[in-house]
C-alpha cells in the first residue's frame, strides 16, 4: 500500500469514466414500494442501473437503502411495483430468481462460516446449487487456482485457502466475503454498507475490485453513507430520504455537501472543533506507561482531564487492544495504567468501573446493550446497584434517571421501547448514556460512530465535546482520520503496535495522519 494510491481517493476525473449510462440497462425498478407492519420503508421508487456503472445509494439510517438492496437481491418481494433484471423475463421475487438472474449481494456483516476453511468460504454459494466445495473436490476440478486468484484479487493472497476462516481478522472476513464475486457468475453486484466495518486500507482493495467489476461490465450498486467512499467509487448517486428517491445525481457534478444536505433534509451545521480546554499543571486523569496488549507493544501516553485524545491507526495497529487494556476489558501483558496519578490494576470491566473508567465497545450488537432489554433496562444496566436499597431496585429512582438520560441524549423511543428496534445511531446513544450515567472520569470510546448516520454522528460529537467541557478525560479510538481531527484535541498515531506520531488536530491534515499510519513508504 503506497501513498500515491491514497491520494487517488478523490473523485476521479471524467476521462476514464464517460457520461452516466454508457452501457445498457442492467436492472430497472418501477414503482417499487415495500411496507412492513407499521412502517412504509419504500414508496414509488423508479431507478435504473447500467452495465459497467457504479450506482451509489445514499441515505440516512432508515431512509430505505438496505430495503432496496434486499429487494434488488430478491431476498424479499416488493409490496408493489417490480424489479426486472435485463435478459430475464420474470420480475425478481425470491432469492432463487435473483441467483438465476445473476444478482450478487454482499452483506454489511460478512457472511462467513467460521468452521469452514477459507477456500470453502470462497465457494460457499456453490452449495446452493448442491455442489461440493471441499478442498479435494476443488482440486479435482482444478478450481484451486481460481480460489487463489479470487483471494489475491481482494488482497488475501497471503492467506492459505486450507486455513480455518475463524482465524481471520474482522476486515479480512469482509474481504473474504467479497472474494466470492471472483468465482460467482453475476451481472449485478450489490455492496450493502460493505465498507462500514472496514478501515481505509481495505477500502482501497474494494475500490480496485469495483474497478475490475466495472471493466467486466457489471452493474455495481454501492450502498453507503460515507461520503468520501461514495465520491471515490460512484458514477451516479441516488439519494433516498424517508423511503423516497429524492434525487439522482451525476457524481462528477455534485459535492458531498449537496448529497449530505439531500440526505438529512436540511443544511448540516458546520461542526465546531472542540474548544481548547487543557487543565495545565494537574495530574493526568489517565496515564499509560509501557503498555503491551494484543498487537500493541510499549505504548505510553497521557490524557488530561477535559482533553479528548484520538488513537488513530490501521486495522491491526493495536488501537483497540490499547483501548481494551486501559479499561479492564482485557489484560495487558506488561505496563502500568495510572488513573488520577495512582497505578491501578483492572482485572475486569467491573474493576475499571470502580476506578471510574468507562469503555464504549466497538461491537455494539454483541457487547453494547442487552438484546432483550428495553431502553430503560439498558440505560440502568451499569448504574443499577446505585439505584437500589438492599438489592431491591428503587423504581422511582430508576425511572427518574432513565427519563433524564432519554431527554438529555435525545434518544428516540420511550423507556419501554426495546433497544434493538432503534436505529444504529440511537442504539449508540443508549450505549453511551448507559455509561455516562455512572459519571466516569475517564471515558474510552472505541469507534463511537461506526455504522451510524450523519445526523447521529454529529449528535455523538456534540456529546463528546460536552464531556470535555465537563472536565472528563476522553480517549477516542478511530479508523477515520477525518473523525480523529474533528473530534479530538490531540491525535496519537499507532503503527504496528507502536506510537509513531502525535498531532495537534488544529494543525494537522487527514493526509498527515494517514501517512504516519501507513509507514515509511509514504515519507
Amino acid at each position: 500500500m503506497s501513498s500515491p494510491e491514497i491520494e487517488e481517493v478523490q473523485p476521479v476525473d471524467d476521462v476514464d469514466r464517460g457520461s452516466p449510462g454508457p452501457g445498457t440497462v442492467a436492472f430497472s425498478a418501477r414503482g417499487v414500494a415495500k411496507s412492513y407492519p407499521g412502517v412504509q420503508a419504500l414508496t414509488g421508487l423508479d431507478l435504473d442501473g447500467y452495465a459497467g456503472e457504479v450506482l451509489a445509494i445514499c441515505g440516512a439510517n432508515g431512509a430505505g437503502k438496505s430495503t432496496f438492496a434486499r429487494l434488488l437481491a430478491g431476498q424479499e418481494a416488493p409490496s408493489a411495483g417490480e424489479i426486472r433484471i435485463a435478459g430475464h423475463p420474470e420480475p425478481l421475487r425470491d432469492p432463487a430468481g435473483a441467483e438465476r438472474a445473476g444478482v450478487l449481494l454482499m452483506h454489511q456483516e460478512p457472511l462467513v462460516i467460521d468452521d469452514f476453511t477459507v477456500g470453502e468460504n470462497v465457494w460457499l454459494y456453490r452449495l446452493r446449487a448442491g455442489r461440493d466445495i471441499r478442498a479435494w473436490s476443488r482440486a479435482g476440478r482444478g478450481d484451486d487456482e481460481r480460489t487463489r486468484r479470487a483471494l489475491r484479487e481482494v488482497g488475501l493472497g497471503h492467506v492459505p485457502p486450507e486455513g480455518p476462516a475463524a482465524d481471520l481478522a474482522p476486515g479480512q472476513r469482509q474481504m473474504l466475503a467479497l472474494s466470492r464475486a471472483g468465482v460467482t457468475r453475476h451481472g449485478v453486484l450489490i455492496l450493502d454498507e460493505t465498507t462500514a466495518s472496514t478501515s481505509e486500507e481495505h477500502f482501497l482493495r474494494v475500490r480496485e475490485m469495483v474497478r475490475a467489476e466495472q471493466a467486466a461490465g457489471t452493474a455495481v450498486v454501492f450502498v453507503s453513507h460515507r461520503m468520501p467512499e461514495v465520491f471515490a467509487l460512484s458514477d451516479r448517486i441516488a439519494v433516498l430520504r424517508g423511503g423516497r428517491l429524492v434525487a439522482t445525481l451525476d457524481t462528477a457534478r455534485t459535492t458531498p455537501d449537496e448529497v449530505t444536505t439531500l440526505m438529512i433534509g436540511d443544511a448540516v451545521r458546520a461542526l465546531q472543533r472542540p474548544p481548547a480546554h487543557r487543565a495545565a499543571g494537574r495530574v493526568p486523569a489517565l496515564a499509560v506507561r509501557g503498555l503491551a496488549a494484543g498487537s500493541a507493544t510499549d505504548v505510553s501516553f497521557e490524557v488530561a482531564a477535559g482533553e479528548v485524545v484520538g488513537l488513530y491507526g490501521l486495522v491491526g495497529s493495536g488501537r483497540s487492544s490499547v483501548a481494551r487494556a486501559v479499561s479492564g476489558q482485557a489484560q495487558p501483558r506488561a505496563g502500568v495504567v495510572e488513573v488520577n496519578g495512582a497505578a491501578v490494576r483492572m482485572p475486569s470491566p467491573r474493576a475499571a468501573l470502580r476506578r471510574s473508567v468507562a469503555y464504549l465497545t466497538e461491537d455494539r450488537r454483541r457487547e453494547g446493550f442487552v438484546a432483550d432489554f428495553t431502553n430503560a433496562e439498558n440505560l440502568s444496566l451499569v448504574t443499577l446497584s446505585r439505584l437500589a436499597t438492599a438489592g431491591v431496585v428503587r423504581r422511582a429512582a430508576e425511572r427518574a434517571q432513565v427519563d433524564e438520560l432519554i431527554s438529555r441524549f435525545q434518544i428516540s423511543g420511550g423507556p419501554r421501547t426495546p433497544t434493538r428496534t432503534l436505529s444504529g445511531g440511537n442504539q449508540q446513544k443508549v450505549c453511551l448514556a448507559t455509561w455516562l450515567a455512572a459519571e466516569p472520569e475517564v471515558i474510552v470510546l472505541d469507534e463511537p460512530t461506526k455504522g451510524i448516520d450523519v445526523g447521529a454522528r454529529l449528535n455523538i460529537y456534540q456529546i463528546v465535546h460536552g464531556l470535555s467541557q465537563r472536565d472528563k478525560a476522553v480517549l477516542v479510538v478511530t479508523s477515520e482520520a477525518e473523525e480523529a481531527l474533528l473530534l479530538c484535541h490531540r491525535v496519537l498515531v499507532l503503527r504496528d503496535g507502536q506510537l509513531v506520531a502525535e498531532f495537534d488536530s488544529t494543525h494537522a491534515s487527514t493526509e498527515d495522519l494517514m501517512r504516519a499510519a501507513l509507514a515509511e513508504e509514504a515519507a
Partner: protein
Amino acid sequence: MTATDRAAADAVAEEQPAKRFSGALPSGAQWLRHQYPLLILVALLIFASLTSDAFLTGRNLENLVLQTSVAGIVALAQFIVVISGGIDISVGSVLGLSCVLSAGLFSGTSVLLAVVVALAVGALLGTTNGLLIAFRGLEPFIVTLGMLALGRGLVYAYTEGVPVRPAAPGFTAVGTATFAGVPVIGWIWILLAVGMAFLLRRTVFGRRVLAIGSRREAAQAAGIPVRTTLVVVYCLAGLLVGLGGFLLASRVGAATPTAGMNFELDAIAAVVIGGTRLRGGQGRVFGAVVGTVIFGVITNLLVLLNVSTFLQDAFRGALILIAVTLATLGRKKARETP
C-alpha cells in the same frame, strides 16, 4: 376468560396509556396476549370438569395440589436456571438425594435437622454445578448430566434400593397439613413463586440474571459480575430442589430410591410451556407455575379417566408439542400487532 373480561382489560389499558415501567406488571390487554398457557389451562379445566365428575371434588383438588406442589417448586428452580441461559437436568437426582438424606441422616429424628440437611445437600450440589459452569466454562448440560448420574447413584448406594422411613413423629406434619383449606405445601409453593417473581423483577440480582441470559457479553462488558451471579443462580436452584426433597419425604412419609425420577423433564417442559425461552433472557414466573399446573391437571385427569400408564406418557408428550407450537403462533401474532 370471557369477552367481557377482555373488554374490561382493554379499558384498563386505555386508561393508563404507557404508564407502565419496566418490571411492573403489563397492562391488561397486553398481559392477556402473552397468556396462552393460561388459556390452555382454562380449556383443560373446563374439559376435565365435563368429562369427569370426580375432578371438581374438594378431595381431588387437594390431591392435585399435593401432587403438583413439589414439581412446581422444582420448576421454579429450573426456571431461574433457564432464564440465566443455562439448564439443570440434575434437579431430579438432587431432589432424590436430599429426600433420602433428610429422612435417613441422624435416623430422621428431628424435623428441623431434616430440613437443614435437605437444604445443605441441595445447596452443595447446586453450588458445585454452578462453580463448574461459571468458573470452568463447562456446558451446563454436561455438568448437570454428570450430577444427575452422580446424585442418583448416591441415592441407590445410600438406600440400597429400600425406602427410608424417618423416625421423627412430626415428620409428615408439614407435608400433610392444610391451612385455609389448601395444603401447606401448596402455600409454600405459592410463596416461593411470589418470592421468585419479586427476585427476578424487582432486585438488582434478578436484572443481572436476565441480562446474562439475554446477552452474556454485554452483561460482562457492563461490569456485571457474571460468574458470581451464575454460581448464586445454581445454588439458589439447589436450595429450592433440596427443600422440594424434604417436602416430598414429608408428604409421602418415606423416601423412596426413585424419588424425583424424571422430574427434570417435567420441570423443563413446565418452564417452556409457560413461555420461557429455552436459551435464556425471557420468561415469566407465572408462566412456569401455570405450566406445572397444566401438567398436574393432565396427569390427574388421565388417572381419573383410567387411561393406562403407558398412554399417559404419550398424552403428556403430545401436550408439550402442542403447547410449544401454540407458543410460536402467539409470538408471531404479538409481533404483527404494532
